[in-house]
């Protein structure tokens, strides 16, 4: 009988608070992750939106190629027009 009482009281006074403490800690940890994940999602969306202009790099590459081709043509003409420097 005494052991029965002791077991019941231990279960009620010790085990139950420990279980509550542990479960509450798990819940708080889980709840603390939620705003962090929401923040990461916002950053990911903003980062994706910032990269919308990345497709314009294709146009930039084509224009750079055309510009350098023009510079090469221009330089080739100058190479024929102007005499080379005379070494002193």
């Amino acid at each position, binding site marked *: *009988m005494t052991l029965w009482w002791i077991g019941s009281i231990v279960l009620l006074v010790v*085990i*139950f608070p420990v279980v509550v403490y542990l*479960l509450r800690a798990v*819940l708080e940890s889980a709840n603390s992750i939620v705003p962090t994940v929401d923040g990461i*999602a916002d950053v*990911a969306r903003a980062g994706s939106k910032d990269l919308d202009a990345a497709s314009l*790099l294709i146009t930039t*590459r084509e224009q750079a190629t055309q510009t350098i081709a023009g510079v*090469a043509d221009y330089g080739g003409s100058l190479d024929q027009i102007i005499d080379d420097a005379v070494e002193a």
Partner: protein
Amino acid sequence: MGMPAAGIAAPGVVMIVAVVLIVLALVYFLVATIVALRRISSGLDEVIVGVGEIIEKSAPVNEIVLAINEQLDAGVDALEGLLVKKAGLEDSMGLIDSVYPGAAAAGLRNFPESAEIEPPHIGETYTLGTLTLARLGREAPIAAASPAGAVLRNVEGGSLAARELYPSVRHTSPQKLPRSPVIGTDAPVQYEQREDIGAPRKRLPTRPPS
């Protein structure tokens, strides 16, 4: 019989209450944890979508930027080589320093020794540049809108291409051009001639006292 039953019932009730409380706590906290984990899961789904878009959009960036850098490197190599070939390394640095003061200190990328050269005086460089432009003459493609435009130095078309650089209408072969002004004795407009021009001086200039 009643006492043992009551004695057994009392701690049993306490244990049952404790077990029920533990089960209720488990249910409450586990359900709340499940709800929080579901919110985390949905948030991570949004993150994955955003990161996937970032990966997809940034995938060709490296290749494109490398291609642009290669083109720019080729342009820099060509322009530096042409400048040094035509003006010489020392005058090249002077020309650069005259256009962008202080830029000669950095030197040319393909000519590391250029950073040690003291650029010539700006006046000398300017004179050299002016002579170079003058040497280019009328066929210089300085005013051409695009380097890929008309071919200069073309034996057959070079003259027309050169004339097109100037705001003249003569190269269009117009039917009638404005008449040039007529001067001289046959000019339609004669100005009054002063009598004192060409006549002997009425008074000789005096010498200042020494």
